[in-house]
């Protein structure tokens, strides 16, 4: 029920390898490696405000990462978290116009419900296509992402454009529908706690309920699941719409907690990064929480690196990509056989050692 030690070792090795590659790359560019890593760390965790920013960046990644992970447990690739997130955000902005008069608690409950439902329905399209017409879910969810992007674009230029009519963006949410900030002026909002509660709920669902077991059984071996009397088609649909609901929630929480509005380029690709988060998180909810924090920290840290050292904040994406690539390489059978001989403790030690070397 927990990640196998070998997969933990391969994760640690992937982090080490990524650090080495980045070090080499920066050295070639003539940039001080130690100042990059130091500022990366300071920018992500230097003080309480920076920590809050890391959590803020991690929040949508956590929701969408959980979404992708849930689908993976049922053996499905939900490439459409991005589209489901956009729909959740759009639905929140739309419903926001009508709930200004409500009490704050009720308005927030409505935001949550509406964004969940929007993601649920958007993923439901892909589930329907899969069940009725045998359309591969990778294709359909990917295509639906483009539909979602253009739907957002159309909405913010047309029916949902702000009343002021100046920019292609929606009206801000009414104050009542805004998630409270817990430690102002830091942007740490209630949605981040909600994300952690959802992570716990997903863990309970997957590993402590019969429905979750049926879903994991379907993902682990669909043929055997069918022989075991599990209605595989039903499980696939359930996994899909639940996954979509989580991704939709990511959008609603982001609007309500941070942006207040929806606009084009609302998401810097959270739904795609989510796939990496789920993989790095080794398909475990705890792992996904840690991976989302790691990715969030990289985002927050890279902004600081850009400000102080002058290295583009794209650095965050580069590091993320390298980690995922190494992880994929280390997941191949031959390398797994080598890795199975390395103990977790040794890999941890190695990581600390490399980190130490890099920062000096």
């Amino acid at each position, binding site marked *: *029920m927990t990640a*196998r030690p070998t997969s933990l070792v391969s994760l640690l090795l992937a982090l080490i390898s990524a650090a080495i590659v980045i070090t080499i790359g920066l050295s070639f560019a003539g940039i001080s490696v130690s100042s990059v890593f130091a500022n990366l760390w300071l920018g992500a965790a230097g003080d309480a405000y920076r920590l809050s920013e890391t959590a803020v960046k991690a929040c949508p990644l956590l929701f969408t990462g959980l979404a992708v992970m849930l689908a993976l447990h049922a053996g499905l690739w939900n490439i459409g978290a991005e589209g489901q997130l956009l729909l959740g955000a759009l639905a929140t902005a739309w419903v926001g116009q009508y709930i200004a008069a409500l009490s704050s608690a009720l308005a927030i409950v409505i935001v949550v419900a509406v964004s969940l439902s929007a993601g649920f329905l958007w993923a439901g399209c892909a589930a329907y296509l899969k069940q009725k017409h045998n359309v591969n879910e990778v294709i359909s969810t990917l295509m639906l992402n483009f539909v979602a992007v253009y739907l957002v674009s159309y909405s913010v230029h047309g029916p949902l454009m702000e009343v002021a009519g100046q920019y292609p963006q929606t009206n801000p949410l009414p104050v009542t529908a805004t998630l409270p900030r817990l430690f102002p002026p830091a942007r740490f909002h209630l949605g981040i706690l909600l994300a952690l509660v959802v992570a716990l709920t997903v863990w309970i669902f997957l*590993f*402590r*309920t*019969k*429905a*979750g*077991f*049926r879903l*994991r*059984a379907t993902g*682990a*071996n669909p*043929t*055997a*699941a*069918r*022989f*075991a*009397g*599990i*209605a595989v088609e039903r499980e696939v649909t359930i996994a899909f719409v639940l996954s979509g609901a989580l991704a939709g929630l990511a959008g609603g929480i982001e609007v309500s907690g941070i942006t207040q509005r929806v606009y084009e380029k609302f998401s810097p690709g959270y739904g795609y990064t989510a796939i990496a988060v789920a993989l790095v998180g080794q398909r475990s909810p705890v792992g996904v929480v840690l991976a989302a924090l790691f990715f969030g920290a990289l985002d927050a840290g890279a902004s600081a690196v850009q400000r102080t050292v002058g290295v583009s904040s794209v650095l965050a994406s580069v590091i993320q990509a390298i980690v995922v690539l190494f992880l994929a390489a280390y997941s191949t059978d031959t390398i797994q056989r080598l890795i199975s001989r390395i103990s977790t403790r040794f890999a941890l030690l190695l990581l600390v050692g490399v980190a130490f070397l890099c920062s000096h």
Partner: protein
Amino acid sequence: MPDVSVRDITKSFPGTLAVDHVSIDFHAGEVHAILGENGAGKSTLMHLLSGLYRPDSGTILINGHPHQFSSPRAALAAGIVMVHQHFMLIPSFTIAENILLALPGSSQRRIDRKALVQQVTTLAAQFGLKIESPDTLIAALSVGSQQRVEILKALAASARVLILDEPTAVLTPAEVDNLFTVLRRLKQERYLILLITHKIPEVLAVADRLSVLRRGRLVITTNTYATTPQELAQLMIGELPLPATRSLSPPLTGSDSKSTPPPLLFLDNVSASASPGGIVLHNLSLDLRPKEIVGIAGVDGNGQTELIEILLGFRQPMQGTFNIKGAQLTQTTPTQMRDLGVALIPQDRRQEGLALSLSVEENLLFNTQRLAALSPGLFLNPNDIRQFAIAQIDRFGIRTSSPAAPVSSLSGGNQQRVVIARELATHPQIIIAANPTRGLDLGATDYVHRTLREHCQRDAGVILISTDLDEIFALSHRIYALYQGRLLGPVAGATGPNTLGQMMTGVTTSS
């Protein structure tokens, strides 16, 4: 024109001696049948000839010269090709493209498509192989057509020795006739055809000579005309003494008992269509009563998979009725059959029985009956699951480092124990056991047999579908044979083994 010989050839796999010092001479211009049950070693012997396996000892002679094949390609260079039971064609390529792939030197860049199509058409006409236009996609072809393409592929690659592995298993009777016509024509052209089969009528129809294998050993090589079907069945099956302690009992009939409970399971005149490459089931009638084990013998690929699919609710009968405990079923699903108390020990535990990435305790939970038997409600209690797992590991002697260990870390026998422990844990009334001891050692086999008998004594009924006749005779109260989608029998009393052997090989259809 090659004469092919194997001399004193031996091949062993861990735990089994698959081919045991076999020597046979094959002559160009003959159809030579290789007869035997499942596991007799006929496929292994042919794989040695076709370069898939290398012999442990012994030699292969072609026209008197020793040859060693390191790969199927090397065997092809010597003119030997195997046409597999499951065709090795690329469905999204055309007939011509598939044939091109098999040609030596197919890696050359330029392809003369016209010449290729011409060659394919000529070859097809020469041997009476009726195929669609060479530009047709394989995916659009019938199974019989695909087989003809496989044969064409071999001929186009200049093979002179064709090994056909159970070629008629998936063909309609008309297609079988057509295939035999092609084989006769190839024979006239001095090709050597080796035909792996367990169907005696086919051997009599098309083979000139034949060799019978049993448990890896050559029993006889003889001319077809010098033998009788009854004798061949006997040679294939061997001696099967009935266990002294048990005898076959007649089925319980209504008049035997005062209160007649409805049969647990009752199939009446059930027929089902074939899936692609599968077997059509014809007019099956079968009943199962409490406290009995009904054995269904047969060589693989005679409809066992289709029968299991009907019994488990995957497949709907096209006609006939299907009752469980007196209730007639119409649209069945596996979930519904599980709810009705049907348990399955599947033929392929790794594909159909287990989720290898999950733990032992999770696999012990892996069916809807077990899930429903847990404490009611939505939640799983990890302590209950752990305790149940520990109890089963203890009771069934499952050797594992811990209940949380992945089931893939267990040996085959222990994996099978996990499947059986789970399937029998809910005391199902109807147990379908398909080759439950395949690949197990003697101790594990004995254990599985004892467990099935125990459950049978406790009011369950067992349908035992097995290719292992020792197992069928050791366990069953009533015995049937499945041959080409038809259920034959039941087999009666002392003449059992002989009659059964003849039924399984198509020599006779009634006891």
